[in-house]
């Protein structure tokens, strides 16, 4: 299997988000099947789709103070009563698809990032802004249109993932526990 990260322009409105206009680069990591292997090694998984009612969504949101956007959950149940969930988190500048494994008692067993999309500011599309990087000699070029492989920069905080995990553990407590 050949995985590669893609730089793509996404019509953000079409995705239901309205953050900034501009470009988004997406990095794809494990497939759902690989994440199941990674987080639930050896466990048997059967799909148990869960649909949250409006009341459940409101109640979960009130308890964890994180917005519940989707009523249709992508959920699997393990033989021992644990859960495997595929979900999406929306951070400050990024949209992250994650997979989370919960133990039979609702504890987080592991988290995989499946896809990470980061939006560029509109300045990247601005020719004047781009011009400053052009013609600066060998070994220096601005990379926005190619497969971005390895980026070093001031550390990205993974704080947004905590909010998403809090929402999912609250969803377990209110809904999945008895599903």
């Amino acid at each position, binding site marked *: 299997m050949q995985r590669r990260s893609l730089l793509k322009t996404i019509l953000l409105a079409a995705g239901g988000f309205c953050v900034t206009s501009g470009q988004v680069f997406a990095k794809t990591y494990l497939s759902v099947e690989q994440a199941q292997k990674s987080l639930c090694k050896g466990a048997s998984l059967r799909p148990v789709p869960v649909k949250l009612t409006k009341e459940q969504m409101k109640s979960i949101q009130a308890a964890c103070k994180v917005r519940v956007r989707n009523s249709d959950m992508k959920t699997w149940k393990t033989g021992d009563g644990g859960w495997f969930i595929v979900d999406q988190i929306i951070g400050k500048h990024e949209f992250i698809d994650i997979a989370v494994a919960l133990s039979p008692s609702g504890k987080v067993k592991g988290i995989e990032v499946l896809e990470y999309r980061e939006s560029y500011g509109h300045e990247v599309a601005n020719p004047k802004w781009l011009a400053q990087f052009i013609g600066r000699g060998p070994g220096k070029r601005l990379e926005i249109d190619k497969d971005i492989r390895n980026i*070093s*920069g*001031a550390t990205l*905080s993974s*704080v947004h993932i905590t909010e998403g995990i809090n929402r999912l553990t609250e969803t377990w407590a209110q809904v999945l526990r008895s599903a």
Partner: protein
Amino acid sequence: MNSLRQCRPLLGTYVEIHLAADEDDDCLLDRSLAAFEEISRIQRLMSFHDPESELSRINASAHLAEIPVSPDMRRVLSFAMALAEASGGAFDPTIAPALVRRGVLPDHGSCPENPADWRSIHLGDESVRFDQALRLDLGGIAKGYAVDLALAVIGDDVEATVNAGGDLAMTHWRGRDVEIRTPASDGRATLSVPMENRALATSAAYYLESEHVILHPGNLKPLERKDSASVFASSCMAADALTKVVLLLPDPAPVLRRFDAQGLVIDLEGTIVRL
């Protein structure tokens, strides 16, 4: 050649592992999982936030008695102290109380008020002791160490890159290019440079999210530089720690040379200055 890319939230950031080899998916996933397990192990030992970590146990009582240290803790602490010495305290792992007072790091109780520096740490072969109550924070160095161990577990027979939110190391680094986020545009554009050693780390004072801060050990004030510092070194632990030295010392070149490292600074206009 088959490849696998895996990413988990660890060490307060996103850790990404990329592997390429003539092996099937399951073999690559096993290697990647072993590397993530190693990073989780270092997080359990060296987290300042976790009151149960080895670091927190040392912080709670090394001023009262000799406390045994794990081989990993000894290696990291020993390097941190060597760098503190070489940089005249520009890098100092005892700055944590000032970060606790600013609310950047959590207070696990009785955080010392009295100023201390790295010279109050006495590291033996298997134990550590402090002259006075202090708080060690390995935030500027343990991430790099975790990256080094993860890469070592994967093995050099696979093409591998481990990137912990910008602290990265790769097995087959010669002839490779790497991107560095520029200070301009909130760090969302990158410049391409050739990889000069096995590891590369970048730090900046300005576009970190508000809960992060770099304090100057001299006056305990937040650093207010608009540029970013990147360091190439043979270990990511050295690269990670040396970025702080580059940001904090007026002339970091002698320290970089001493640790066989190459440094560069990128300013707001995207100009690269080599040190």
